[in-house]
């Protein structure tokens, strides 16, 4: 079973999955884009909260729509960035986050 596929004979469910799948690339792009901006901006609690929420939301929706591997990668990122909603990460932690964001991709094989 490929990523994103679910055992169902529901046509509507398949249509919904296809729609989600089509939009997913832009959502991942948005996370990459937001992170690139955040890296160069001074740490800001509100911006980090928004980024955390964005990652958290996508963790849940990708998993529910059957993109299990991507959901796990997002969850890893979500868990790692959570403390930095409260305090600025160190340079090493910025590098680690960049690595986790860089890993985010859709496996369609």
């Amino acid at each position: 079973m490929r990523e994103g596929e679910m055992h169902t004979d529901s046509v509507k469910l398949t249509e919904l999955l296809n729609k989600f799948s089509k939009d997913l690339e832009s959502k991942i792009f948005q996370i990459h884009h937001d992170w690139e901006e955040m890296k160069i901006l001074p740490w800001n609690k509100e911006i980090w909260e928004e980024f955390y929420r964005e990652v958290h939301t996508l963790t849940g929706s990708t998993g529910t729509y059957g993109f299990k591997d991507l959901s796990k990668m997002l969850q890893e990122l979500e868990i790692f960035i959570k403390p930095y909603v409260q305090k600025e990460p160190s340079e090493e932690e910025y590098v680690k986050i960049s690595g986790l964001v860089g890993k985010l991709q859709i496996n369609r094989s």
Partner: protein
Amino acid sequence: MALKNIMLVEDEPDIREITSLALEELGGFKLTVCSTGQQAIDKFESVCPQLILLDVMMPQMDGPMTLAKLKKLPGGEKTPVIFITAKVQTHEIKEYQKLGAIGVIPKPFDPITLSSDIQALWSKYINERG
């Protein structure tokens, strides 16, 4: 008592869509969908749901805050709530139970089994209530 009338409170459109499909089309439930806690509070008295599915992390008014406000409405105290959340560590489940939740559906969930998972929590609740 058969479960028919459910209120879903979820801010994420993708999750709202797939949950609606899972519960209405696959589960055969009557579903009232709200995208914010405030919307749930506004609709509660006219809808009189038997059960509320409540997302934990929402902007402005989160799930626990919404639950606290719903409980103050007529009939709100007696309406069971199931939280939907990605945070499902044991101590967090206990916290939600203390708030009055009858169960927790972890995100991500399987849309195919969602109806039966909810039905199981509902049956357990009805049996325990006696």
